[in-house]
């Protein structure tokens, strides 16, 4: 059964939702599912903007056939070749042998690499600023390299103001019948998953996101709709999501607050983390989140690190090294280009306490513009009353630093 929505005159959403996929990109859990968005424009020519994941191919084909209503498919515009959007292209090309393909040079290269039979179709290689007319609709293209792949472009329909934004402005969470950003309480129900999607998938490429935002800013007055490849379509409140993107892509915290991430083999480091959280909250800083690094998927931790100004790492020493799940988390932050955060370290070791020094070195050497607070809490096996002075000093330092954080972050990117 087809399942489509009209977005605006002649433009249809023909995507699909996925609740079966457990791990997005085989890494990130998606308990609320994900949507694969694909769009069809019915002009003098018929145009498909991107396809869907292989798992949703059948639904999309049914939708496409329904919307075309007997017409052929003249063009497919491939904004992004990643297989969660492009895998079904293969089937589309078979079903519509006369269909012409519009994409970037690198897009075509990657399609060939993935084994799609693009060479038996007419190809239009487009570049930044090119325009293309489908009848009454004229579109223009903006290259969007390294927003997380090298080949993407975004396509702006100059006639109806629809921006086909590829993975930009996408989010986890299946649409399940909802279509618009204002169909939901975005800030309450969606932003956390949106942040987790962006920071884990695109987080590393802040400068290139900024490059794209800069290009978009020049045509902002022409944009009426932002149609991403995952999640809801934006039809208003662009400032809200642009502000989030600006924070994330400049590695600027959204909020002053403290994320405590601990690893604890027997509960002693956990207990110290709890005591520390208690001291921090007692001092009036209550925007505190705490997670067990071994129990929590790193994608959630990463999203919180992007959100908050401060990170406390409480970590045992394991085989003279950083406790491995913590090491994995830190390495994830490094890979994602995390910067401009203040870090406090709580180290534990029962006979050779090494984790603090190793973490400090990792944070200082492998990441950019990170500040490690001078005060460090060193625990020999378990926190006792004689360590109170030390951990109170750490709580003081964190609270004092949180107070200063906002102005610091603002000035860094002024």
């Amino acid at each position, binding site marked *: 059964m087809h399942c489509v929505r009209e977005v605006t005159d002649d433009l249809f959403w023909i995507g699909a939702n996925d609740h079966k996929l457990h791990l997005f990109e085989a890494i990130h859990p998606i308990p609320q599912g994900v949507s694969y968005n694909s769009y069809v424009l019915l002009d003098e020519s018929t145009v498909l903007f991107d396809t869907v994941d292989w798992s949703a191919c059948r639904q999309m084909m049914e939708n496409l056939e329904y919307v075309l209503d007997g017409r052929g498919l003249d063009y497919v515009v491939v904004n992004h070749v990643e297989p969660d959007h492009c895998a079904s292209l293969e089937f589309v090309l078979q079903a519509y042998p006369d269909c012409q393909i519009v994409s970037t040079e690198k897009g075509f290269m990657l399609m060939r690499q993935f084994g799609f039979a693009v060479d038996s179709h007419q190809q239009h290689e487009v570049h930044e600023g090119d325009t293309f007319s489908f009848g009454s609709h004229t579109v223009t293209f903006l290259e969007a*390299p390294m927003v997380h792949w090298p080949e993407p472009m975004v396509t702006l329909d100059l006639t109806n103001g629809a921006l086909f934004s590829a993975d930009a402005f996408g989010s986890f969470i299946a649409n399940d019948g909802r279509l618009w950003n204002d169909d939901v309480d975005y800030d309450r129900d969606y932003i956390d998953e949106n942040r987790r999607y962006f920071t884990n998938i695109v987080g590393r490429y802040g400068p290139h996101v900024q490059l794209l935002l800069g290009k978009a800013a020049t045509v902002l007055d022409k944009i009426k709709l932002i149609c991403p490849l995952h999640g809801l379509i934006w039809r208003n409140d662009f400032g809200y999501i642009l502000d989030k993107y600006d924070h994330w892509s400049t590695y600027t915290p959204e909020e002053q607050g403290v994320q405590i991430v601990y690893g604890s083999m027997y509960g002693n480091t956990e207990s110290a983390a709890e005591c520390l959280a208690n001291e921090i909250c007692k001092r009036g800083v209550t925007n505190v989140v705490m997670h067990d690094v071994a129990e929590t998927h790193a994608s959630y931790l990463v999203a919180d690190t992007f959100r908050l100004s401060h990170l406390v790492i409480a970590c045992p020493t394991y085989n003279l090294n950083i406790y491995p799940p913590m090491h994995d988390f830190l390495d994830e932050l490094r890979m994602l280009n995390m910067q401009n955060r203040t870090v406090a370290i709580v180290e534990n070791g029962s006979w050779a306490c090494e984790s603090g020094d190793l973490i400090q070195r990792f944070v200082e050497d492998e990441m950019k*513009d990170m500040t490690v607070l*001078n*005060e460090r809490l060193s625990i020999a096996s378990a926190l006792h009353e004689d360590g109170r002075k030390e951990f109170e000093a750490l709580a003081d330092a964190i609270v004092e630093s949180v107070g200063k954080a906002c102005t610091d972050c603002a000035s860094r990117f002024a």
Partner: protein
Amino acid sequence: MLYQTTEAQERLRAEIRAWAEKEIAPIAFQLDQNNQFPEDQVMDLGKHGWMGIPYEKEHGGAGLDALSYAIAVEELSRVDGGTGVILSAHTSLGSYPIAAYGTEEQKKKYLVPLAKGEKIGAFGLTEENAGSDASGTETTAQDRGDYYLLNGSKIFITNAPRADTYVVFASTAPELGNHGISAFIVERGWEGFTFGDHYDKLGIRSSTTAELQFHNVKVPKENLLGEEGKGFRIAMATLDGGRIGIAAQALGIAQGAFEKALAYAKEREQFGKPIGVNQGISFKLADMATKIRASRYLVYSAAELKSNHEPYGMEAAMAKMYASETAIEVVNDALQVFGGSGYLKGMDVERAYRDAKITTIYEGTNEIQRVVIASNLLGRLGKKDAKGTKKAFSADKLPETGPRRLQVFQGSDPQELVDKLVGALKADGYDFSVGIPADTPISEASRVVSGGLGMGTKENWKLIEDLAHAAGAAVGSSRPAAETMGFVPLDRFVGMSGQKFAGNLYIACGISGAKQHLKGIKNASTIVAINKNPNAPIFKNCDYGIVGDVNVILPLLTEALGPGEKEPQTEFAKIRRANPPKHEPIGPVMVCSGCGYEYVPELGDPEADIEPGTLFKDLPDDWVCPVCSEPKEHFIDRTTKGL
């Protein structure tokens, strides 16, 4: 081909030998004992025309060849190694660069009085972090239009502070390494040019050696020697020639010791015969004489090549290396021939034994001589590989004491400076109501107040003791303050060769911060420096500093910390080190639009032969992303801001 010196050369030798036997030999022991520069005798050398032997007559020299000069150094060193190096450093190092690279005006003004011996010359290249590797030069000369502003310091400078004219090497373009070094002629007495530590040396004690300090010294433009940026070449060419001088010095020291041993072997009788009849002794003498003869031919041949304008760099290095190693062996054997008598102070062989050692070290260690020789033999073999392992770009170079805050307070109101310092220390968690005894062993002390030569006199030491009490600290010192001045017992000086301090607070008063001292305090949580010289290395190694006179600052600081009774310190909680300031990046980090690779200028791209420190804009046009081969123009700045 008959290898023989000329009659004129031998006549010169005879004259200088006679002079040295008469003027130097009788006082050599006294000079050695008292660390005394033979002022009158050096002036007399000048009167004889021997202070400018290889320079043209029109520039005040004797117009003789390099071999005559080598003979002069050899003959002086035969009697006293210290006097030999006075001549060598003056002629080869202090005068040569001006003779070879100076303008006619510079030669008239500086070379003439040097060659006539009216002025004494010296050469300032070596620094704390630049010796064998001149690219580490940290002394800078900033172009200020009419003049260069010279800042920094030089160590181990022979003839300083006595010398009048100094050829000083400083960086005019630090980012260019060796290619940014320039040479300058600097006069003693110019404002801001002072002398530092007096060195208490093992040997050559009649020659004087000191540290040069430059604080905003204005060097007139006309005192730039050669071209800007050519200083490294001037230095290397000078050292090539200087090696002949040192080789001649080593040869002379060996010759002198050998002659003494030979005489003693004939004179000293055991078992009813001169000891020389024993093969144990005679074979030693045979070996000594052979090695000395080989050395002599190496030295003279290098000098001949130089006089005839043939390439001589490798040969000079061979001569220096071989003659100095021969000297070490010969003086060792000579002393052995003398037995117990040779071990006594006042014996010439004892002095020669000590004097000889420096010849394997200075003007290029013998290890460096082997590098020079080997590179002449092998060319640039392996050079490319060495590049890849080059140490991290110097922007990342840390102070000797590790990362430090480097917060130095300067100003006209000493009370304000002291208040800032005390405020900072208290903010770091220092509690000055508690204290430890002044004689707590340095290694166990949580705090130490140390004094250096800058404290001046023993009477001033009370300032240190009072401050130590007020700061709740034990008392320590720099090495010279304990060793030379005797301010404290020898077990209380701090440094690589003394006590190591690993406590919380170290307050260094009147200590310039020699490397060996800094190594002893690198584990201190907080280092405070108080010194009147703003260029003292200690300020590059401290968390907090006050530029000021210890006589003014210390009493104020004592008062501010509280001179009253202190509670005994109950626990020694290690205070964590302060966070040092972050290094400023040298240029933008650029991100590849094909894959996200980041080009970091501090790291360069060694795989593509791009040196660390190369800015992105300076990359060759055909450089591509090392990961995905994207061209240079597809990179964007890491700080790209779109909105």
